[in-house]
């Protein structure tokens, strides 16, 4: 009988634990092993960039051990290690992601591969072919579709906002379940809707906590601030660099600038770095059903991702005189075009770089945000940063309020925080425990958390038995809890609750009737039938709730208990009452004999 089962939880590699870097989580639930995300760390250039998969299984094949892999969204800190994992370490099982993620993820992977291998000349990295082979293992899922991974394991995706195609996943085995949020945001932005989940009451909610303590000021304020800064810089003839990831923030900020340029009738050019981003807008057009309500409603009249003012960037433009705004990838200034432009513009104090998202340690983005103004570049070259550096948090992560809101929506029994910084998480943990009275965990990297669940056991009850019981429950005296009696038949893995009679019948067994007959001696000189009448009246007076009957043949029944009177063979003044009942009436039978033993009350006549 499964009584207690547990969820086993485990973070792989620096990241999913208490550090923003790479996400990779292993969950064992009722014997099924699921890997959640397969991210890489952007701050490292060596082995540490990928999770250490030997944690999962030392010897055996990953395919044998893992039942499936789920990718929450296309950011590289959530999917960057996927080709390494599936093609170089070796995994052939199913990988689940949403359609937009499946479409966009290989493009980001290829872009990332190009930067690392082609530009930096690194070897021992996955190849284009590996990305293709990896993507062949991907199964695309719809929102809210229940995907049956195998007979017992099912998964379901919920809308997460954050970026196009981002999803939260529910993983369910029997009546035990885990929800993994990936990254999400609880407020709709200019291009995406808010995350939503139903009251699915998971045993465990694994939530990101990037902005665990921040309660961010209103989005409108930040947007106005951003536009003001861009506008001022452009007005004084400066250049604005906005390092972004190709998809996500880029589109939101483009919509913002496009409408602003339109309104203010500005002439300074806005560029998109080549390659990725143009294509990215195309994905947004085709997957418009994943964007927010407003964009979806108006897309026939005007597709918000067709920009009038924003044009493709050419490398040569960076040296053009005069003001301009450039969106360039990648977002943390750690490589590629954004870094190239940054190096060109950094020396001029008229220019500005706006970092619209979080930067991991070790990246140029992180360095300048923490105030460093002299950077050592490749080849011992020192780059002096004179341009203005601004940080604007546009990352679409849930803040503390949003995280609490999601917990309120899903009503989990336990919460586990990942993808955040230890100190902030501690604060949030206390808040969650106080407000929701649930356990909250924040495992360190590589740590295992075990959560015991105590599920109720579903069984099949025969309709006959259930109807019999509910019929009793409908009686007027239904306030008292009624006991139901049945027999649970356990065969193979099926549990069936049937009436005892049916259980006997099914097993081909005969009932054994156990009957008792007690002789109760009563002092009563009257004739037998008079004695019987006295007994009858007495019982009827005492047993008000029972059916007491005087039968024509001279016997008395109380429910199914039979009482007959005979004269004593020797003593005329004594009558013998034979009280007879079956084992099923044991309580009442036993009670009756003791009642009668006390004798009959003195008759008033």
């Amino acid at each position, binding site marked *: 009988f499964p009584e207690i089962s547990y969820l086993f939880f485990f973070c792989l590699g620096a990241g999913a634990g208490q550090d923003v870097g790479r996400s990779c989580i292993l969950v064992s639930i009722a014997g099924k092993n699921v890997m959640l995300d397969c991210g890489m760390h952007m701050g490292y250039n060596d082995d540490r960039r990928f999770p250490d998969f030997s944690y999962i299984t030392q010897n055996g094949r990953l395919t044998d051990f893992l039942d499936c892999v789920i990718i929450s969204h296309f950011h590289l800190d959530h999917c960057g290690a996927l080709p390494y994992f599936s093609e170089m370490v070796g995994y052939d099982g199913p990988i689940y992601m949403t359609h937009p993620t499946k479409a966009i993820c290989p493009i980001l992977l290829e872009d990332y591969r190009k930067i690392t291998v082609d530009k930096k000349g690194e070897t021992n990295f996955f190849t284009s072919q590996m990305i293709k082979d990896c993507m062949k293992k991907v199964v695309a899922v719809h929102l809210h579709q229940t995907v049956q991974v195998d007979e017992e394991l099912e998964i379901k995706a919920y809308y997460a906002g954050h970026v196009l195609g981002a999803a939260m996943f529910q993983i369910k085995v029997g009546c035990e379940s885990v929800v993994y949020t990936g990254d999400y945001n609880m407020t709709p932005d200019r291009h995406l809707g808010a995350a939503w989940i139903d009251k699915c009451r998971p045993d465990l909610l694994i939530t990101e906590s990037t902005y665990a303590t921040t309660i961010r000021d209103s989005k409108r304020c930040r947007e106005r601030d951003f536009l003001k800064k861009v506008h001022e810089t452009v007005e004084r003839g400066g250049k604005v660099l906005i390092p972004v990831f190709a998809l996500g923030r880029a589109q939101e900020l483009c919509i913002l600038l496009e409408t602003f340029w339109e309104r203010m009738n500005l002439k300074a050019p806005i560029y998109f770095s080549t390659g990725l981003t143009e*294509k990215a807008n195309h994905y947004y057009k*085709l997957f418009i059903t994943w964007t927010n309500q407003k964009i979806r409603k108006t897309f026939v009249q005007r597709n918000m991702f067709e920009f009038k003012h924003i044009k493709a960037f050419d490398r040569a433009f960076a040296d053009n005189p005069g003001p301009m705004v450039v969106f360039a990838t990648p977002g943390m200034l750690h490589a590629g075009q954004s870094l190239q432009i940054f190096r060109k513009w950094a020396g001029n104090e008229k220019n500005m770089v706006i970092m619209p998202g979080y930067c991991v340690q070790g990246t140029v983005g992180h360095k300048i945000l923490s105030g460093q103004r002299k950077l050592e570049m490749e080849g011992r070259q020192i780059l002096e940063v004179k341009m203005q550096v601004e940080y604007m948090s546009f990352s679409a992560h849930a803040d503390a309020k949003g995280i609490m809101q999601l917990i309120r929506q899903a009503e989990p029994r336990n919460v586990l925080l990942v993808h955040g910084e230890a100190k902030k998480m501690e604060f949030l943990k206390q808040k969650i425990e106080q407000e929701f009275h649930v356990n909250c965990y924040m495992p360190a990297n590589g740590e295992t958390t075990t959560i015991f669940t105590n599920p109720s*056991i579903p069984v099949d009850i025969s309709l006959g038995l*259930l109807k019999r019981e509910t019929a009793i429950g409908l009686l007027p005296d239904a306030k*008292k809890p009624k006991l139901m009696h049945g027999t*649970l038949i356990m065969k193979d893995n099926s549990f069936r609750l049937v009436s005892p*009679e049916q259980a006997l019948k099914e097993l081909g067994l005969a009932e054994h009737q156990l009957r008792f007959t007690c*002789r109760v001696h009563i002092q009563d000189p009257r004739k037998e039938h008079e004695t019987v009448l006295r007994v009858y009246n007495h019982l009827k007076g005492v047993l008000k709730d029972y059916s007491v009957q005087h039968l024509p043949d001279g016997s008395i029944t109380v429910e199914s208990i039979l009482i007959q009177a005979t004269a004593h063979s020797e003593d005329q003044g004594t009558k013998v009452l034979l009280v007879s009942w079956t084992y099923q009436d044991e309580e009442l039978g036993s009670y009756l004999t003791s009642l009668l*033993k006390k004798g009959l009350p003195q008759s008033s006549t």
Partner: protein
Amino acid sequence: FFQYCLSGHPTLPCNVLKFKSTTIMLDCGLDMTSTLNFLPLPLVQSPRLSKLPGWVLKDGSTFLDKELKECSGHVFVDSVPEFCLPETELLDLSTVDVILISNYHCMMALPYITEYTGFTGTVYATEPTVQIGRLLMEELVNSIERVPKAQSASMWKNKEVQRLLPAPLKDAVEVSMWRKCYTMPEVNAALSKIQLVGYSQKIELFGAVQVTPLSSGYALGSSNWIIQSHYEKVSYVSGSSLLTTHPQPMDQASLKNSDVLILTGLTQIPTANPDGMVGEFCSNLAMTVRNGGNVLVPCYPSGVIYDLLECLYQYIDSAGLSSVPFYFISPVANSSLEFSQIFAEWLCHNKQTKVYLPEPPFPHAELIQTNKLKHYPSIHGDFSNDFKQPCVVFTGHPSLRFGDVVHFMELWGKSSLNTVIFTEPDFSYLDALAPYQPLAMKCVYCPIDTRLNFIQVSKLLKEVQPLHVVCPEQYTQPPPTQSHRTDLMIDCQPPPMSYRRAEVLTLPYKRRYEKIEIMPELADSLVPLEIKPGISLATVSAVLHTKDNKHVLQLPPKPAQPPAGKKRKRVSDDVPECKPLKPLLSGSIPVDQFVQTLEKHGFSDVKVEDTAKGHIVLLQEAETLIQIEEDSTHIICDNDEPLRVKLRDLVLKFLQKF
């Protein structure tokens, strides 16, 4: 379990299922063939139509000549076209809890149901179904509302009058129930009651029933539905296709193990092969245009038109038609073309792969870009400036009674150079053409109906093996015009149960089990006993709680201890309450061992006598008698409760409890 059949139209079904404690409406199709009895609504004043003679009865009376007009021997109602609604009297439609929509063609009666019957429930449909359904409704409302008709004929509906009319008016059913088209506010109100769902999404209804839409392969977002509880499964198959066109393929596997399979929406033209029809469509189109004629294609604004445009995309260059303009005219033409490109997840694999590139899934994007295909909201405005002949025009409505198509019929009908090609299978093309006769224009009938044909159905049924099949009566006999074609009907074992409009069916199955949950504390307290190898039993005495149709068994509460020190209560208070029933017993008592046990427990004078059926064990001193037989034991003793209880427990040791 009952099924109320509110529509007699096999491809525009409307059924209500009473399943467990829920009332579920399956589709609400609107039968528009009723409009064929009406005169077309011309966008531009048509001298021909306005000069049609009024109809005169055989006896010469003319009281109907304002309402009925005659054209080439047929009689038409000169009034705003009306539709035949699903039955509304068979059951109280305000009791319907949910409506499940299978595809956008099967939701056209929705505003009539949600806005006129007191309906307060929820409608479930996929996103493409809702978006395209909205477009179809918008087009319908628009094309009727923009041609206001002063007169509304009702005299002819009088039963006494109707009897006197010629066929088919004479035989039209329930004309008193026919209704005018709904309005846009009603459409919006109806659509606001829809909740969007995705394929394979499990939707719980009141804890009692789970419904799940499955891909049906027929149209964008089209679905079949599974309606199930833990123990019974009804599959509702409506408008499914096994052909590879643009939608996601049909999910057949999930239909397996159904107790009942309700089968509707099969092909209306079982003898026509859709591929062959598309070929014929292309060649007729090319021939007409080459000869300098125009081609008119009456169609819905979504669906097969996407496939036709895709075929033409591949065909026009090779056929030398690249300079011929293609026009798509509908108030929703632009929306339809745009929407088709954004439902990647609902498309077949090939089209999905295109989106991953990223490219638009349908090639009509390119036709528009290269100006080969132009779309207009109506014939007024830009179109009249751009209009060049010869050309190809796609426009609605396929009934030829309203919409821009009426104008083109009037415009092109007189020339034999032009061709009208019928591709939609919903209307008889001869009936559609009747009010335009006499006609010089060529008429080609290439109905393209991709829904299941009878061969596919019989294969499907063999594959998924439902216990019972329920279908409209039309599918249980050959088509009336081809009564020898016994292959054009459903053939399965047991034979299908058939239904017709306004009938109530009792669905044939019996439940035997229900799901119940045993709380962990109770489960811990159970003592399983292995009775036979692999079979264990445990007796359960527990408290049953039922809430929201979910049953839970809990540990019975501990009996409250009587407060200590209180005086012994009166006898009547001691009457035992309804205590847990004692278990049933089974097994038999081996006499020898029983006697040994008695002796072990201090009974020294045990005597055993054999009887016909068993034994009698005597305890002489205690004057106690124990009759032991194969299936019973009877203890007869004096009123010595400790002794009786001792003997009882010794007997019980040998028996199994249930």
